[in-house]
């Protein structure tokens, strides 16, 4: 041992260092209290369920610790919780005390949610009137079960609406009507184009004349009226026709609208589960709660993301727009489930073979020719895919456009661009459908895409260009203002 210091000095230094550490730690831990003397004031809150709360459980406002639970007592079947709040922190009388959880298995804490308006602060010893206890696990499970039952009936009625013969007919009719309307308008526009142009020219000229020759207006009036007459005379037939067209178009529109109206009316009145689901406020709350609860449960600290995207692809060959509406549920970063509807104007293709028999009178032989045609009609299709992401590659498979299929997506670093390829409809003749696409995220919410579909079939392949919209649950919440009503959101 070094003999620089005496025994006294060495022991003295040792004891001093230890006591210094002990005092420092004591002071650190009892911050807010000075050596056991508690500072701050107390307020009380009554909770229906104080499970998981302990003395020293933290009290937070906007994520900042402002106090802790001082005491928990049972009073008239309620938990009477005394909160000790740091001096200088005021809590308005309209504030709400909410028991929240850090993560699914995490500890409980109390969040004070201030009221919207400024209010008188609660005095020391006062009570915070508005409280909210967490739903306990069993309750949550029951709720989820109820919602699952609801969901099933929703999907049932959806399948009735879309899948049943009546439903199919309804939708077909609706689309027919819309199509026809559009056709009518189209025809109207072309046929009246020249006449209308001329009309507008004349009107323009007339206006000019009026402006320029205001003083001579009276003298010219006769001539003008003559001219006008002539115009009308000349166009009499087309105007009539126009009126007729407009008439029938509006009739079609009318019918379409009526159809739509019936549907929306039903929905509005809460007929059918989907209607109920949309109109019932309680359901909305339940769904919201359940979804955020589910997110918390499934995701742990990471979130269960929900993404909705819509994409329209203009197909050059068919001169029409194919639409996609997809719901993506992403429990973890490396996998997702996709559910979607595809409206394909050239969707249903059947191959029919026509046999033509020609009797050759000269030779007396019978010649038969065979023609194969692919008939294309519009169709609604379903997507249901599972996807797994490995580094920049996402492999997915399942039901693509109501047929079995697989696909692969390659993301660029930063997810700005995506190259994807998919193969589906293996029954298609002569080859399965193959589609390749490049998507670029131009700005938030918007995706620009281009590619070629049905590559393997020479006669049907087409280039396409598309524009997409993409929202995740956070965006949706912002859009629909759901965030305000959530009570059990993950607070990470």
């Amino acid at each position, binding site marked *: 041992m070094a003999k620089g210091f005496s*025994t006294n000095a060495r022991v003295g230094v040792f004891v001093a260092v230890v006591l210094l*550490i002990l005092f420092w730690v004591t002071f650190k*831990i009892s911050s807010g209290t000075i050596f056991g003397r508690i500072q701050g004031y107390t307020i009380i809150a009554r909770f229906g369920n104080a499970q998981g709360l302990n003395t020293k459980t933290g009290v937070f406002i906007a994520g900042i*610790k402002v106090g802790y639970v001082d005491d928990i007592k049972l009073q008239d079947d309620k938990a009477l919780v005394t909160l000790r709040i740091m001096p200088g922190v005021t809590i308005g009388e309209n504030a709400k005390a909410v028991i929240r959880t850090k993560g699914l298995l995490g500890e409980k804490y109390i969040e004070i949610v201030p009221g919207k308006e400024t209010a008188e602060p609660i005095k020391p010893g006062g009570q915070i009137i508005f409280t909210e206890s967490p739903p306990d696990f069993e309750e949550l499970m029951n709720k989820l079960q109820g919602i699952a039952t609801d969901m099933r009936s929703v999907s049932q009625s959806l399948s009735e609406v879309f899948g049943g013969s009546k439903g199919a007919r309804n939708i077909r009719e609706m689309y027919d009507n819309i199509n026809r309307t559009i056709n009518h308008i189209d025809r109207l526009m072309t046929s009246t184009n020249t006449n209308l142009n001329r009309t507008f020219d004349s009107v323009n000229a007339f206006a000019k004349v009026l402006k320029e020759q205001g003083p001579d207006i009276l003298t010219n009036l006769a001539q003008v009226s003559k001219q006008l007459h002539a115009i009308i005379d000349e166009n009499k037939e087309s105007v009539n026709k126009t009126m007729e067209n407009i008439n029938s178009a509006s009739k079609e529109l009318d019918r379409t609208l009526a159809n739509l109206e019936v549907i929306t009316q039903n929905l509005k009145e809460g007929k059918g589960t989907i209607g109920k689901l949309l109109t019932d406020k309680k359901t909305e709350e339940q769904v919201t709660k359940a979804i955020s609860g589910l997110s918390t449960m499934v995701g742990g600290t990471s979130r269960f993301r929900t993404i909705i995207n819509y994409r329209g692809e203009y197909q050059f060959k068919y001169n029409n727009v194919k639409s996609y509406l997809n719901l993506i549920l992403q429990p973890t970063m490396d996998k997702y489930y996709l559910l979607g509807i595809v409206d394909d104007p050239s969707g249903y293709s059947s191959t029919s073979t026509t046999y033509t028999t020609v009797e050759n009178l000269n030779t007396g032989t019978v010649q038969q020719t065979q023609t194969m045609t692919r008939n294309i009609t519009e169709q609604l299709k379903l997507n249901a895919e599972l996807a797994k992401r490995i580094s920049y590659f996402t492999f997915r498979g399942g039901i693509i456009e109501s047929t079995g299929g697989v696909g692969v997506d390659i993301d660029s670093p930063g997810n700005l661009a995506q190259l994807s390829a998919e193969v589906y409809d293996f029954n298609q003749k002569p080859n399965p459908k193959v589609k390749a696409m490049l998507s670029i995220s131009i700005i938030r919410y918007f995706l620009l895409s281009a590619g070629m579909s049905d590559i393997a079939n020479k006669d049907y392949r087409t280039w396409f260009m598309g524009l997409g919209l993409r929202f995740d649950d956070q965006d949706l919440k912002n859009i629909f203002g759901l965030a305000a009503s959530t009570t059990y959101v993950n607070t990470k």
Partner: protein
Amino acid sequence: MTLNPFNIFEYIGEKFTLFLEELGGIFSTFLQSFGFIVVPPFRFRLFLKQMEFIGVESSFIVLLTGAFTGMVFALQTSYAFKLFGAENLIGPSVALSLTRELGPVLTALMVTGRVGSAMAAELGTMRVTEQIDALYTMSINPVQYLVTPRVSSSVVMLPMLTVLFDFIGIIGSYFMAVFLLGLNGERFINDTIYMVDLKDIYIGLLKAAVFGAIISVVGCYKGYFAEKGAEGVGKAATQAVVIASVSILIADYFLTALLF
């Protein structure tokens, strides 16, 4: 000895009597040594000397084991907590385990190895070479002269060493968590301070004081009543370490059950 069934009972009875004798001896040593704290003459120099030996000179080994215990503990708990995504609990769990349990117990075990055996050997040698008898014939109470300073400074120094152990252990776990596992340092400290109660620390220190008494009383008792010869001294040192270590672990259980 032959394993005659009757002899077995005799053997067990004999051993049990020995055990009771030992227990009584240790306890009486404890009472005597404490009693002499308040009886003059006060041997402050001897007390200081023992404080240096038990406290100051043990600080290096305590700091070393403390730092590594904290680091290893942080590393081990991180494996489990990562599964739950609860890495923020590494700090509190290390701090709580150290202050409540590992700090006092490991410090006591380290000091037992270093100091308990040394006490037994030193007093044993003094017994064998008649130095204790010499003290007695010089009208100096050997218990007061030899045992009391050792026991009292142990009781004072063990909690102090535990403070060092806890502190350096938490620093060790901090370094592990922040620099190796990439946790947020400020959060680590805040969570730790939030979860650790003063009670946890002070009860840990109270335990340490009890362990200090155990180490020194057992060490002194074993040395004081060492049998003749070098072998007797060696046996005393070994037994002191074994008995003190086992007693510390047993006492820890009861103290934990009683105090927390």
